């Protein structure tokens, strides 16, 4: 198996790495100390731009650019908000960082605060993460004790406080403006943009929102340099990525690999191949919101641009593998149920569309499909896309359109015969 440097996961196997002593002994907080004691914010932003670090929550926007949007002349306080509302089905990387290397996140937050002139960071962690919250809270306490947080960070007189904010169960709060609303004590309704959070974010103040994994990349960038980091990845995609691999593989788990690692390599080498000796049928490459790939499409590099070129996306790098026994109607039912459950209900196309689509797929699943259903589903999906306040309206119909388009014959069989062709096939072979 090919092996790659471990940047983000280097501490995952280290015993007690969640304790500050262990973290420090591995050179922890040196990057933050360096930045606070000898760097200028502009220099830091330039360095991160050069590193080609892109937002690893899913959108893939340049982190350095995002920081640079924070207005320099603003008299209002600036905030760093950490998106730890990990909820994209198929993704579990942030949980690993929070649990196994929480100080990497604390250090990343310190660096981000310095870059944008913020003295307070809110860490929005999904409500179900009771254990990760407990561990991260302890890390914050330890960092405070050491003087890395508080009123006098590294003796520089610079103040940084971290507030841990526990969510309460809403996938939409992973959308950054819904997260801000939620942080302000409201329903998670995504905001109209502009203004963008960099200008008017939490409490109406300039705010930068970064994902956990993104922030954890900052200490290595500072320590080892932007060029080194950029070179780890591929063109315009610096660094490595924590690929969450799940589904029908022999070794489901989290794998740190460079951006641009071929998808087939991830499945066959790192995750141990398709389980039970079966054939690969399909892969979701970047969380449930990404277009599905058929088995003949997996010879592709896992980076933002390569996946975008084939109409899918790297997203959160949640790789969900499906073997030949997978019924695509069932998978679509699961996806549709999720989106109908999680739509915030603000925009008409998404609110009504997600529920409608789910009911249609349920009907097909139960054997009452009609000949026009599939074309209707594609059309309804298309009507939702691009017409809502946030990207949820684009994500929700993506499985509908991509599963039906790529596995049309299977859906048609289901509609015509009221059951799955896989059932029929397995019966015939017996």
């Amino acid at each position, binding site marked *: 198996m090919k092996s790659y440097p471990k940047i983000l996961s280097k501490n995952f196997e280290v015993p007690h790495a969640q304790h500050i002593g262990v973290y420090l002994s591995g050179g922890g907080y040196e990057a933050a100390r360096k930045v606070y004691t000898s760097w200028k914010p502009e220099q830091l932003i330039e360095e991160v731009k050069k590193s080609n670090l892109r937002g690893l929550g899913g959108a893939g926007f340049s982190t350095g650019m995002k920081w640079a949007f924070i207005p320099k002349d603003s008299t209002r306080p600036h905030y760093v908000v950490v998106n730890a509302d*990990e*909820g*994209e*089905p*198929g*993704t*579990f990387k*942030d*949980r690993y960082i929070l649990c196994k290397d929480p100080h990497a996140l604390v250090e990343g937050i310190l660096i981000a605060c310095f870059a944008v002139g913020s003295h307070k960071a809110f860490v929005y962690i*999904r*409500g*179900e*993460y*009771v*254990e990760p919250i407990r561990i991260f809270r302890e890390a914050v306490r330890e960092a405070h004790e050491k003087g890395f947080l508080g009123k006098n960070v590294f003796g520089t007189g610079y103040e940084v406080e971290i*507030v841990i*904010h*526990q*969510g*309460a*169960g*809403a*996938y939409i709060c992973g959308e950054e403006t819904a997260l801000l609303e*939620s*942080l*302000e*004590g*409201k*329903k*998670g309704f995504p905001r109209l943009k502009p203004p963008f959070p960099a200008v008017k974010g*939490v*409490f109406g103040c300039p705010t930068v929102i970064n994902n956990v994994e993104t922030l954890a990349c900052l200490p290595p960038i500072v320590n080892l340099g932007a060029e080194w980091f950029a070179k780890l990845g591929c063109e315009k995609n610096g660094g490595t990525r924590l690929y*969450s*691999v*799940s*589904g*029908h593989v022999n070794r*489901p*788990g*989290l794998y740190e690999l460079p951006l641009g690692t071929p998808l087939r390599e991830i499945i066959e080498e790192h995750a141990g191949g398709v389980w039970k000796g079966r054939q690969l049928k399909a892969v*979701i490459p970047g969380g*449930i919101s990404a277009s599905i790939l058929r088995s003949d499409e997996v010879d592709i590099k896992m980076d933002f641009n390569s996946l975008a070129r084939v109409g899918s996306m790297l997203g959160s790098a*949640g790789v*969900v*593998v*499906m073997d030949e026994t*997978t019924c695509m109607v*069932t*998978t679509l039912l*699961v*996806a549709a*149920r*999720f989106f109908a*459950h*999680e739509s*915030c209900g603000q925009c008409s196309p998404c609110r009504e569309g997600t529920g409608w689509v789910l009911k249609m797929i349920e009907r097909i699943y139960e054997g009452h499909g009609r000949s026009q259903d599939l074309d209707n589903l594609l059309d309804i999906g298309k009507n939702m896309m691009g017409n809502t306040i946030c990207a949820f309206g684009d994500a929700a119909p993506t499985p509908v359109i991509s599963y039906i388009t790529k596995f049309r014959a299977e859906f048609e069989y289901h509609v015509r015969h009221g059951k799955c062709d896989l059932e029929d096939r397995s019966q015939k072979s017996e």
Partner: protein
Amino acid sequence: MQAKFQMSSELKTELDKIVSQYETKQAALLPVLNLAQEKYGSISPEIESWVADYLQLPLMKVREVVSFYTLFHAEQKGKHHFQMCRNMSCMLRGCEEMIEYLKERLKLEDGQTSQDRCFSLSTVECLAACEMAPMMQLNDRYVGPLTKESIDQILKEIEINN
């Protein structure tokens, strides 16, 4: 007239500390509700109106929030709350069978709580632990990959501890 709900003074002190971390009182709404639910087991209408008064919010703004987020519930859950993930990776690895098995063992349907308030069973969307599929959240703890044997084992442990 029903007696007005009173938050314990101990909890009130804790809540005051939370509120002080935020720029607005409203921003403390989720943490305050989370903590109240942790202590009282549910968000009753009385707690809703106490929180509204406490954070100086219109009652409707609290109502909206409580109804929006799935972790808030008005009814008391069982001492052992089984939340079975039924999203993609768990489905692929057989969560439906596990859910059926658990329903059978607990004699509960999705969303139900046993009469003795010992067990609750819910199906939930992705808990972001797909590597341990099929998995569940049992109270605060993530458990997986589940098999019929591991479910039997968990239930046995609960029985012993009771």
